[in-house]
């Protein structure tokens, strides 16, 4: 369907003035609007995006608030996140209402437009990556299988490895393994508690982000050793697999020197990772 030309021109001009596209307001020559009312529309637009971004990237914004307040405008940094949101609207607004899309776009936008802020806090983008995984876990469509309840978990923990290997499990598609160049699970937790975060730690981190059982569907974060992460990655999301097969896949994928370790270590490492994943909802029972 061809867009009606006058309407298209009117809406384009309004949008350009509203978003200040590319940082340039085309002014009344494009479309005449009362200045106070245009300012109100811009306030509403920025408020909408600010709300969505703070929802989607709660702790990344909390970290930016702290850093920008501490910098107090030094080194050309903005004095607050409002200016960052305004710039985001100028150059990279979202196509949809999706908080996941907005988070993705902002994560790509920030290092490009505010490299000094990212240089000051190099774990910021990794924190956004973790929060994006959190959003994914929160909103993904319902997973196959079911979370084991506490009684079932306790029984498995008290049982033998054979009991665990007899299960058929499925890796929840809502869950993800997140690899970052900085330690951010602890950073997120500190910000959630309202604590002053430690300085960035350039320590590579692998974490699992998963959705717990109903009715709360709480999001679980777990920092994983490489061996444990490999257990979880040995299952394809959404594809049921016998735990015994999962263990065999993991054994086959284990790199040296872990591959040469004794069977008792392998059994313990597998069971530990699998049980943690079952508790968190990363792995679900079929």
């Amino acid at each position, binding site marked *: 369907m061809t867009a009606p030309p006058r309407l298209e021109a009117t809406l384009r001009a309004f*949008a350009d003035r509203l978003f200040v596209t590319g940082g340039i307001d085309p002014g009344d020559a494009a479309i005449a609007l009362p200045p106070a009312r245009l300012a109100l529309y811009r306030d509403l637009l920025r408020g909408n995006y600010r709300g969505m971004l703070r929802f989607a990237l709660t702790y990344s914004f909390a970290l930016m608030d702290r850093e920008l307040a501490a910098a107090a405008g030094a080194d050309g940094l903005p004095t607050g996140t409002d200016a960052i949101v305004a710039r985001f609207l100028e150059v990279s607004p979202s196509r949809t209402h999706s908080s996941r899309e907005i988070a993705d776009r902002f994560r790509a936008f920030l290092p490009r437009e505010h490299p000094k802020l990212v240089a000051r806090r190099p774990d910021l983008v990794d924190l956004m990556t973790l929060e994006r995984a959190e959003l994914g876990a929160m909103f993904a469509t319902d997973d196959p299988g079911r979370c084991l309840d506490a009684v079932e978990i306790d029984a498995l923990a008290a049982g033998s490895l054979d009991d665990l290997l007899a299960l058929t499990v499925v890796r929840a598609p809502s869950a993800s393994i997140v690899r970052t160049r900085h330690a951010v699970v602890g950073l997120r937790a500190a910000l959630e508690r309202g604590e002053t975060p430690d300085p960035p730690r350039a320590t590579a981190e692998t974490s699992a982000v998963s959705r717990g059982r109903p009715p709360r569907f709480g999001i679980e974060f777990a920092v994983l050793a490489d061996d444990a992460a490999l257990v979880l990655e040995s299952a394809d999301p959404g594809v049921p697999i016998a735990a015994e097969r999962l263990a065999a896949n993991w054994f086959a994928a284990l790199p040296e020197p872990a591959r040469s370790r004794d069977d008792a270590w392998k059994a313990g490492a597998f069971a530990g990772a699998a049980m943690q994943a079952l508790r968190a909802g990363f792995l679900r029972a079929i």
Partner: protein
Amino acid sequence: MPTPSRPRNFGLPALGVGVGLRKKHADRIAAERPAMPWFEFTPENYMDRGGRSRAQLMSVAPHYPMSCHGVGLGIGSVDPLDWDYLRSLKRIIRETGALWASDHLCWNRDGGRSSNDLLPLPFTGEAVRHTAKRIRQVREFLELPFLVENVSAYAILPGAEMDEAEFTRAVIEEADCGLLLDVNNCYVNWRNHGTDPKHFFRTVPAHRVGQMHMAGHDDRGDVCVDTHGSPVRDEVWDLFRDALSLTGPTSVLIEWDNDIPEWERLAAEAARAQAIYDDVVGKPIATAGART
């Protein structure tokens, strides 16, 4: 006045006064099933999602009449209709058994930019034809009665060929859709542009009004902003009586989306609306209440 040969309330059930289903109250509503004739949900909060939000919706939907009130369609935009969005919308409508669907007579995106806001359309014949054509497409795709809501505006775009009431009437008649009459928005536009709400009520065809919205706004003196974050103001309650006297029995919804109060306060606001409703039009024809 309604045309006698045409069904009132756009042929929809007149459910009396309900409230919006919001996360804050969803668990309690599911557990206690309070007396409330119906609920309206915002599909964008649930579409293509699982987890807690979806579980909350699906724990309430089987027990009450529901309507689906979107905020993301942007029906007057010139960007192509988002068919992925519409397919998701149709799925959630079917899953919840919503009795009707609605969205706003506005635009919200251009050139791939989403404002996530309800922006005013120019009151032109070109916009009428464009918007009505798209409403027809949406209505036919959803296979459900479809209403559009008049929106609050803070500017009237240049080039208007008619007023808001005439524009609204033209769109809904050409689209053959219903109107979700937001009484607060009429008041807000009155304050912001001097457009008389009673002229609006009398210009739009009363038989096409399938639902009403009542909400609070922020009066900043030189401008009123539609916030949905406070009680309905007295001036809007007065207009509600006028509107009801023209439409007759319908379904009315209290919208309280920001600074959402405790359930008891929200229910009291709905009860106030219901008392006025009963006084003006009598008890609802099809009172539903919680299904057991």
